[in-house]
């Protein structure tokens, strides 16, 4: 202790009153520390009693009876089986069965370190319903899986830890509907199929247990109470497996998420002089807020970008529009063409067709035909920024995206360019606006699109008009009634002739 330090050793070994005063005003434990301590306490409480003796070292009797193990009969049998396996190295499944019938009323927990190397991951260890991660799959929501909130998870664990389970034969498994609880226990994934009165464990082995209906009732109540926008996570059908459920939750920080990348210049344009052009739209009117984008979109396309190419659309009035096409393989296995309308490469001649035509194939500083043919413009993709900054990037091939799509000019057009392309990251889909990342669940996005489509269902075709695409509310002026009078004459054909001022 330094000389300048205050000596508060007098407060050591505080009595009740002092401890209460200090704890009320001065003891500060962060939430994360509290959480850690609590989990540690619960773990110690659930794990066993060997370390807790009847006597403390002070020699005083402390009322600490044997910890009650809250494992049910099948858990005890599994633990016991593991212990037997450690000694004899017998087959797991057989031992479980044998021991289940001969197990004593109370069998102490087998701790992992007491189990031999060959059977370290015991079923008994896997069945501890304490801090495991779980997700629930019910037929009502598939392919959405419920990401169970902590408080609901605890509710389910309490039920699972309190009901009586009995080992049963596979013939007890009914044909009807079931829910699946996917569990991740310290990196060991397994699942429990929950029928009204039967439970099927599916991990490294399979086992059937008879129980009452409280678990399925609890799952039903969780699925009813779930905040769907927040807790429903979309999965590819193929990934709804014991392992797949947990693999897809692995995510990277937003800053490391590579949503878009700059593609190479097309081969046929490499000898051209390419200049960046200003945006074809007024950027003030392109929306980037998801609520506005979903108003435009009539559906969400989920898929992987396989390729891209550029075209130019020649309009009837002689003007031309560049387009970028993304070849997308949807999660349903179909291939579709999604268009970034108004963006991409366009030749100077196509872009300036009307002006070049009017000036005898020359323009401004009198370019030669060769110069005109060599010159191309590139219209960048709107990325939520202002018109001074456009993106040259496109979605990365092989990554899964949600495209907000509306039909425009007979094409599936991506709404708001890059702002309408959301990349899957972990459980969410991420929208990038300039350098900002916004997370959405697919369920939430789908709801937004559905709600807007329902709202506009009476006028679906109107959504395809350019004004709607740009989200422009065209101003409406009510003309004032004029008090002036005009005299006119009627010619011999009956046509009214107004005098010109």
């Amino acid at each position: 202790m330094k000389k300048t330090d205050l000596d508060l050793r007098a407060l050591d070994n505080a009595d009740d009153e002092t401890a209460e005063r200090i704890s009320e005003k001065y003891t500060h434990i962060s939430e994360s520390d509290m959480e850690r301590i609590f989990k540690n306490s619960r773990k110690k409480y659930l794990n066993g009693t060997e370390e807790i003796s009847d006597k403390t070292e002070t020699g005083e009797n402390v009322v600490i009876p044997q910890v009650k193990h809250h494992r049910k009969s099948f858990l005890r049998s599994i633990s016991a089986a593991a212990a037997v396996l450690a000694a004899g190295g017998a087959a797991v499944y057989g031992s479980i069965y044998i021991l289940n019938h001969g197990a004593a009323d109370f069998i102490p927990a087998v701790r992992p370190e007491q189990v031999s190397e060959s059977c370290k991951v015991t079923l008994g260890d896997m069945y501890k319903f304490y801090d495991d991660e779980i997700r629930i799959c019910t037929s009502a929501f598939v392919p959405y899986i419920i990401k169970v909130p902590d408080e609901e998870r605890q509710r389910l664990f309490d039920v699972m830890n309190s009901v009586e389970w009995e080992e049963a034969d596979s013939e007890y498994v009914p044909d009807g509907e079931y829910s699946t609880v996917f569990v991740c226990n310290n990196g060991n994934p397994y699942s429990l199929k929950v029928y009204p009165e039967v439970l099927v464990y599916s991990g490294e082995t399979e086992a059937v247990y008879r129980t009452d209906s409280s678990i399925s009732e609890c799952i039903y109540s969780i699925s009813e109470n779930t905040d769907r926008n927040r807790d429903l996570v979309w999965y590819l059908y193929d990934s709804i497996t014991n392992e797949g459920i947990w693999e897809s939750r692995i995510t990277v920080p937003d800053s490391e998420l590579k949503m878009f990348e700059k593609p190479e210049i097309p081969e046929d344009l490499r000898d051209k002089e390419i200049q960046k052009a200003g945006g074809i739209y007024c950027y003030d009117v392109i929306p980037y807020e998801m609520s506005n984008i979903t108003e435009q979109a009539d559906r969400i396309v989920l898929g992987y970008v396989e390729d891209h190419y550029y075209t130019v659309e020649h309009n009837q009035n002689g003007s031309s529009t560049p387009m970028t096409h993304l070849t997308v393989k949807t999660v349903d296995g179909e291939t579709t063409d999604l268009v970034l309308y108004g963006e991409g490469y366009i030749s100077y001649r196509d872009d300036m067709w009307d002006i070049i035509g009017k000036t005898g194939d020359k323009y401004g500083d009198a370019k030669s035909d060769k110069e005109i043919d060599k010159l191309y413009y590139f219209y960048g993709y709107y990325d939520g920024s202002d018109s001074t900054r456009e993106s040259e990037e496109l979605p990365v091939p092989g990554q899964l995206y949600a495209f907000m799509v509306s039909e425009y000019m007979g094409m599936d057009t991506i709404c708001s360019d890059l702002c309408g392309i959301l990349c899957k990251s972990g459980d969410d889909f991420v929208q990038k606006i300039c350098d900002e990342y916004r997370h959405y669940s697919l369920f939430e996005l789908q709801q937004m699109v559905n709600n807007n489509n329902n709202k506009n269902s009476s006028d679906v075709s109107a959504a395809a008009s350019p004004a709607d695409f740009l989200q422009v509310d065209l101003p409406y002026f009510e003309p004032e009634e004029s008090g002036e009078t005009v005299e006119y004459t009627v010619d011999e054909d009956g046509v009214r002739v107004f005098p010109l001022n």
Partner: protein
Amino acid sequence: MTHEELRSELEKSESQAQRKLFDQYCSYVYTIVYSRLRSCCTREDIEECVSDVFADIFSSYRTDRDFSGEVSGFVGTIARRKSADVYKKHISDRITMPIDDEAAQHIAAETDIEEDHAAKELRKEILNMIDALGEPDSVIIMQKYYFDRSSKEISEIVSLSPAAVRVRCGRAVKRLRKTAEQSGLKL
């Protein structure tokens, strides 16, 4: 929380009851354990001991007993005994003395009622003086000199910059020493 409330919570849900008990008494247990072990243990050891205390509380609480009144007495007793055990374990690693050693005969008994009372009064007086500094100075003094936290850690608790914490701490120490001197105490 009373025993009746705890029993009723345990009937509804064991884990939620334990959570409530923990949330309510975590600071209290931590303070008891910390005040006993701060001189010989690391913060990690102290946290470990707090975990042990709650594990003991969870496992030893008997719902079939008809206790009444506040649970704090029960919680405090387990916290004191557990921390005493840990303290002895740590101390015995450093000093061992054969029981038949002559010097051992002169070791004072653990409990001295008169001394305990005097120590309690002293603690009360010191806490009164620290309280009188007012917030955030009292918090800064306790965090710095009792809980051994750095200025940076304290700055997060009192929402001041680390530099401001250091300045206020220096001034508060001077004020506290002055008050203590007037009361005939040396801190």
